[in-house]
């Protein structure tokens, strides 16, 4: 065991990673059409394919009680026929042309993601423009799609221990703000959305001035702009969605949620309210996430999973949201381990972060992990399209993608301690535990 002792004693010096964010990729060209559509283009001829992403600034935060989940339901309806391209045609035509698609809805945005060979570029513009302005609403399809969405809810929430606990945790952490309800919607709302709800949602969110389009891949700027002018520029703008008025009141005491369910292992979520994506503290929170959970040398993994063996896994999510959101820790206690014990260990590590400055080498390690991770997301045209759009919408400017390394670099040990002390306070905490029930 001599070699191990030597290794542990050998002090690690961690060199800083140099920025390479901009060096390898083509320049991003940005345009704003007269109708307000923001267009971001990055040429990349590595593969003969294109990633075309549409970020609509509408999500479950724009909903109200009774119609929760309608943003997500609407996302499904966007594939069910418009004026020029009828039911099933979007998918049929796209796959026939060698492309595929998906879409996702969050609390803040609805994003449509198209991947296809360059040969399908004009078809995609034609179809996307058609559904941006002329969506059809067939009552029969609405009913069938309701079943699909309910199945999605059953899979991701009702029959998923993690999904179920997460939903209950959010509902407790937010009492007033729309982040209270789940993106997929409450079951009773899924059963009750009406055609009018869908039409109203379309009118509220789906207009060029509420959208950012990102094109990355085997295209030229001239080619994309010619198609944009032809297909998207004629679409009129609309009033943007109303501002979200409700602000979540300050939390003044710990909240606890328990879910009892048949399960092999318990689950635990611990959430703290944190500021919105544009706050400078958000980058510090991301560094904290890396310090605590990125890699097996991270504080929580090495203590809880490895050394103490009290957890099967640990994770954290420093959410970036348009309105103040949550920093969420997740823990799966090992079988036979009382969740009270994992909770205590987690709180000890959080307390350590609030009380002691993190060592420089440890901080540099976390930053290097973040930069490398960030960099790896830029490997694919799809990854880049998603990051460009996300930075544009959540940080207010896609250019922040190329300076995010400097933001990360600027975080100091004092920042980490200050931010941990500020947000990871007992009064600001929601603890949710899933306790296995006897069969």
């Amino acid at each position: 065991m001599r070699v191990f002792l030597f290794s542990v004693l050998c002090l690690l010096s961690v060199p800083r990673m140099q920025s390479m964010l901009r060096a390898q990729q083509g320049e991003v060209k940005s345009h704003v059409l007269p109708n307000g559509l923001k267009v971001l283009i990055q040429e990349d001829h590595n593969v003969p394919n294109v990633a075309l992403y549409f970020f609509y600034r509408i999500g479950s935060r724009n909903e109200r009680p009774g119609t929760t989940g309608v943003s997500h339901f609407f996302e499904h309806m966007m594939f069910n026929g418009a004026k020029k391209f009828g039911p099933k045609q979007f998918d049929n035509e796209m796959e026939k042309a060698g492309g595929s698609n998906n879409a996702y809805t969050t609390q803040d945005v609805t994003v449509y993601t198209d991947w296809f060979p360059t040969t399908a570029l004009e078809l995609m513009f034609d179809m996307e423009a058609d559904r941006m302005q002329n969506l059809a609403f067939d009552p029969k399809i609405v009913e069938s799609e309701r079943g699909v969405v309910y199945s999605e809810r059953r899979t991701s929430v009702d029959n998923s221990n993690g999904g179920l606990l997460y939903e209950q945790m959010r509902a407790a952490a937010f009492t007033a703000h729309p982040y209270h309800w789940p993106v997929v919607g409450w079951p009773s709302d899924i059963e009750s959305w009406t055609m009018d709800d869908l039409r109203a949602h379309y009118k509220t969110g789906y207009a060029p001035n509420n959208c950012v389009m990102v094109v990355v891949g085997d295209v030229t700027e001239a080619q994309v702009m010619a198609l944009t002018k032809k297909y998207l520029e004629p679409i009129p703008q609309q009033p943007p969605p109303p501002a979200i008025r409700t602000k979540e009141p300050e939390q003044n005491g710990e909240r606890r949620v328990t879910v009892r369910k048949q399960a092999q292992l318990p689950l635990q979520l611990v959430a703290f309210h944190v500021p919105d994506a544009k706050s400078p503290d958000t980058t510090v929170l991301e560094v904290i996430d890396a310090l605590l959970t990125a890699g097996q040398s991270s504080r929580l993994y090495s203590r809880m999973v490895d050394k103490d063996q009290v957890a099967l896994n640990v994770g954290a999510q420093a959410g970036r949201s348009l309105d103040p959101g949550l920093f969420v820790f997740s823990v799966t206690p090992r079988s036979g381990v009382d969740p009270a014990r994992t909770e205590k260990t987690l709180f000890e590590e959080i307390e350590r972060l609030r009380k002691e400055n993190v060592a420089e080498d440890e901080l540099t390690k976390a930053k290097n992990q973040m930069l490398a991770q960030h960099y790896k997301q830029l490997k694919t045209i799809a990854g880049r399209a998603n990051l460009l759009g996300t930075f544009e919408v959540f940080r207010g400017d896609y250019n922040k993608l190329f300076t995010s390394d400097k933001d990360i670099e600027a975080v100091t040990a004092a920042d980490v301690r200050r931010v941990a002390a500020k947000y990871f306070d007992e009064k600001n905490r929601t603890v949710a535990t899933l306790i296995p029930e006897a069969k």
Partner: protein
Amino acid sequence: MKTVTKFLAILLTLAATAPAEVRLPKYTREVLPNGAVVYLMPKPGVPLVNFRILVKGGVEADPGGLAGLTAVTAQLLRSGTARRAASQFSAELDSLGGTFTAGANEQYTVIGSEFLSKDLAAGLDLTADAVLHPVFPESEVKKAIARNVDGARAAKDNPQAAIGQYFRAFFYGPAHPYGHPAEEASLTRITRESIADYAKRLYVGRNMVVIVAGDFDTAAAGAALRKTFSEVPAGTAYAWAKDATPMPGGRLLLIDKPDATQTYFEIAQPGISRTDPERTALQLLNTLFGGRFTSLLNDALRVNSGLTYGARSMLDLNRRPGAITISTYTRTETTEKAMDMALDILKRLNENGISAEQLASAKAYMKGMYPTQALETPDQLAAMLGDIEVFGLNRGEVDDLFSRIDAVTLEHANALAKKWFRQNDLTFVVLGNASKVRDVVKKYAPVVKETKASEPGFAVAVN
């Protein structure tokens, strides 16, 4: 507007020519004196370098009664080496912002790591240290096994993960090398000795493939790899298991999960191997059957009827023939309707085949998706080189793909639909609330077995 339109027309004419082929970037292959095969594929661009080291054998090489040994051995590579304690390895890896994963599939252990190009030397040192000099400390072995046992238990809390494990045991059966998912009992039998013995036997030159892909200097990397991997003992090449076939069909396994509000089901029949000459044609057929959003299965079960969030089919491509599997889920009350519908879609494909238009669409889809699925990133390219080596293929696997796709005729595709998408002797695995679906699912197979998700393990007595 006129000039724009004209300009557009020119651009679109240029763009409308689909590539006639795709090509694998240039690479070198070298066999070291100890038998280790080294591939280098330089691809300038994103400054990343990807290492992929394969050890032939995989899950198939798990000794009897020790299911999970291949995977646990792989997991423990980083948990203590001749030069580094587990914590030291993690600290160095994380400081570089590197990634390191190790796991196993049916035919090989795969160790994958990725670093910034500038860290190639440090990344190689870490990766090779784990693969070539693991010491498997007793304390780390105990921790890993205990964690894997809990992992097998936790899988029961995730129906979609669990059904795959039950499926493996039930479809292949105990006599087949693929029929042994790791479970509590087999994991508990694994010892430090069995792990060290496994590594000594299999992590040898004649059994090892080393691949580097990405943005790096070929001469320098080649020399470093040659030096590092020449020190591996040549050993003995893994002897692949003798032929084995899945269990006969006509059987149904029902797994009771009383709190489930939906039923998850898989319907399978024997398929082909990775090197089957008909693989391209069958991939086209599977694309149409359940391999994409507009597939026959998804169109019927999701789009037309709203019975599910998604229905698909999978075509296994491993060293030995695998399964062709329908997979979906629906709420408990519509279990019979969904299962009948899936079988009806299978029947229609078998009896009526596909149309020329469908075949053309599947061909375009396969070609259109391929570059971003297989050729975009260093890790994708490294994975392709690994398959070429282990399955005895060549660069034609990529370079001739489009011509293989073009060569599939409608007549041939329909003959294959009849041959491979059969309606009889199917194997069913159903997970849900048994008290509500037990009577419903009886009709699908003459032999019905039942187990409880709350019971340990995934295998049930098949006879």
